[in-house]
């Protein structure tokens, strides 16, 4: 049987990531996820959407696919921007930011990786796909 899938197309406008989190909350309820799991999924989704909005440097829409599986939820955030090199993204540490000139932002990838069970990045000059998986422990 084909796995249930929900797809969203978001324009790059302020706070559009909240549409994605509202959808994620409905899916989380459908899957009987805990409040903690639901919050983690929404937070990771917010950060992936913001990265797509801010760093893709394009006016194209951002696509979000939710794949509902028996024992996991997979979310793909897809942009058609200029891509990025993940190896050049430094792991942020607050000790390096407080009282220093370093900008305080740059936490998105770190949060996504901490909150999800697995994260994959595929990126080239045609765009970036972030695939995030949350294993469901019923």
């Amino acid at each position: 049987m084909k796995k249930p899938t929900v797809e969203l197309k978001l324009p790059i406008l302020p706070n559009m990531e909240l549409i994605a989190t509202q959808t994620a909350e409905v899916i989380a309820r459908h899957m009987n996820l805990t409040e903690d799991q639901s919050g983690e999924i929404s937070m990771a989704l917010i950060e992936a959407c913001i990265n797509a909005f801010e760093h893709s440097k394009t006016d194209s829409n951002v696509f979000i696919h939710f794949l509902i599986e028996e024992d996991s939820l997979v979310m793909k955030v897809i942009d058609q921007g200029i891509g990025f090199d993940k190896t050049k993204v430094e792991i942020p540490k607050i000790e390096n930011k407080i009282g220093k000139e370093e900008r305080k932002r740059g936490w998105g990838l770190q949060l996504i990786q901490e909150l999800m069970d697995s994260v994959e990045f595929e990126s080239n000059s045609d765009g970036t796909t972030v695939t995030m998986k949350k294993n469901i422990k019923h």
Partner: protein
Amino acid sequence: MSSFIKSTKEANQIVIIETDGYLNNEGGEAISAICYEKIKGGQHKFLINMAGTKVVNSIGVSILIEIIEKLQEVDGKIGYYNLAPIVAKTFNIMGLTKYSTVFATEEEAVGAL
């Protein structure tokens, strides 16, 4: 005042800011505007009641890091209470809990800050 700021009050020389809604860049800037104004007025202790903020993003939370940095210059403190579990977890991952404190209640926060 931004609609993100539900109220402000003072207790025991602590400025208590109650938020309502999404802590994004605009929400963070609304908090920082109040804090910086109060710091200029000589106040150095702040509490954020986040009962009405169930959703945050890292840009908004980064502005709290800027406030922590500013408070270090004046030997000030900031704390938070009524955090949703995911907000507390986000603060922990980003390291805010190394430089500021999460409290369970206003009573506990006012007594400890």
